[in-house]
């Protein structure tokens, strides 16, 4: 299978004018403007195959959105190269633009005062869809996104969840082969999040579309993506299966035990790091290698009523990645 996206050493510096405080500073900067370069993306290389659904993770300001903007052609990189669907994105060739879509959860392309349907008609014209294709695509999107009667209501009267789904429909009407989703579930309630997630999954499966998705919501990533790319301070930190991220970065597991009679948690320190002790139940963080020994010791020396061993939750791992770098 051909690569849908390929980047090599992709780098982006932002130039921002340095502003001195005060009126005089403003006048001075008119004539002698100083700039500061900030590296937002730093030599990132990866490859995504056609039809893959990849999670793109990183803390705020890690460079996720900047990367998506380069891949959609909005930004030109400072260095490095990228191709998407065989095109150099920032050349903004019409063929390329017809095959992609960029959805930013916090930005809207819908016309505010009039029903979403009108924006769809505009996109039909922009992307040159025949009436038959338009009908077919629209009917499917309406059904998948459960849009129904919302299409005839002015956009400003829609709830955030309804609007986000209408936004997705507008972005997918031309059936892009490459979909870049930036925080598609931001601000939505749990039920809406689930709907959007299910939709993304179906869209990926049904049309074999390549999807790259950023999200702060770990549930999105866990439910949708087998593969994740993690960046931190613009650098690629991890690229691989989600499961392996767990093995690689979670060097410990969680051991939880309930006792029949209270024990002194201080005595349990030698078995692992005590996270919590409450209602005669202890939660310990135990290094992987030491797990069997700790569990055995616990069973041997304490009145254990119940015991279980768990993997660390993914969001904990990612949080750890972001805080420790």
């Amino acid at each position, binding site marked *: 299978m051909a690569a849908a996206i390929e980047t090599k050493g992709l780098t982006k510096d932002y130039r921002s004018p340095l502003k001195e405080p005060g009126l005089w500073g403003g006048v001075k900067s008119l004539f002698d403007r100083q700039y500061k370069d900030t590296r937002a993306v730093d030599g990132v290389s990866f490859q995504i195959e056609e039809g893959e659904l990849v999670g793109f993770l990183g803390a705020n300001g890690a460079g996720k959105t900047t990367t998506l903007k380069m891949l959609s052609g*909005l*930004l030109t990189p400072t260095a490095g190269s990228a191709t998407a669907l065989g095109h150099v994105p920032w050349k903004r060739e019409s063929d390329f633009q*017809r095959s992609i879509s960029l959805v930013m959860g916090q*930005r809207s392309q819908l016309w505010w005062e009039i029903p979403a349907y009108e924006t769809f008609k505009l996109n039909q*014209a922009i992307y040159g869809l025949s009436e038959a294709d338009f009908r077919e695509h629209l009917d499917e999107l309406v059904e998948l996104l459960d849009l129904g009667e919302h299409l005839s209501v002015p956009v400003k009267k829609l709830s955030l969840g309804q609007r986000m789904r209408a936004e997705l429909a507008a972005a997918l009407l031309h059936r892009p082969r490459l979909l870049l989703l930036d925080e598609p579930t931001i601000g939505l309630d749990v039920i809406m999040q689930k709907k959007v997630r299910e939709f993304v999954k179906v869209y990926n499966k049904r049309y074999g579309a390549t999807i790259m998705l950023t999200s702060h919501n770990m549930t999105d990533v866990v439910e949708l993506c087998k593969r994740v790319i993690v960046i931190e301070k613009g650098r690629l930190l991890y690229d691989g299966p989600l499961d392996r991220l767990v093995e690689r970065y979670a060097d410990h597991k969680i051991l939880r035990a309930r006792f029949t009679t209270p024990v002194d948690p201080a005595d349990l320190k030698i078995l692992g790091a005590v996270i919590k002790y409450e209602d005669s139940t202890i939660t310990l963080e135990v290094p992987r290698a030491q797990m069997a020994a700790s569990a055995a010791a616990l069973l041997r020396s304490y009145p254990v009523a119940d015991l279980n061993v768990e993997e660390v939750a993914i969001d904990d791992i990612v949080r750890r990645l972001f805080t420790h770098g």
Partner: protein
Amino acid sequence: MKTYWVAYQIALQETLQRRSTLIMDRLGGFAVVVSLYSFWIALIGNKATFLGYTRAEMLTYVLALNILRSFVFTGRGWQLVGEISTGKISSYLVRPLSYQGYALALDLAQKTVHVAAAFFEVGLLALLVRGGLFLPSDPATWILFGVAVLLSSLLFFFLEFMVSSLAFWTSESGGPLFCFELFLQFAAGAFFPLDVLPLALRRALEATPFPYMVYFPVRIFLEKVSPVEALRILGMEALWLAAVYAAAMTVWRRGVRSYAAEGG
């Protein structure tokens, strides 16, 4: 082409949807016309002409202003400034779409509504003053005037587009746009005929594209210029339009490039 036609229809719908904004706009414009009218009538007093304008001509100038303001000076500059500074422009830049064509279609929709309203208002005023208007009898004058106004509105569109595009570089491009539009209306003759100004200043302004937007077209309408002179004015206007178009496109392209380089 279909894209722009659909965009025009949608924008028309939206303009009509925002009835209260539309009504406010019209009331504001109408107030300007009425005050200009009263002002000139007071100045003319019992004189037969004032600054070379008869009463009927001055009244026509003022009423024509209302229509020209609606056709020439209704732009979307503020929207472009807003779309650039909020980053909404991105959603156009990733779609296979010419932003100028799109903006022009939206602009035309707004003009359609405003011109219709302006004709209604002018009709009302004309009834109130019971005729007393100067209407050229030569159909050629109407044609020349029509062409002039068409060019004017394109000239304004690209001038405004150019100034609004400065938002790509500065976060405060609302300021320049505001100053520019105020100066433009003055220099175009949208507050008073430029004959009011000292000759030197008038000559200086005539060397800019601004008087081609209101002053010259109205002079053509009032048959204050010979047909040959009218054709020369149209020629100059076309040259200005070409120059402003080229400049606006250059600024826009550079703006988009800088937006792509610096991020939005």
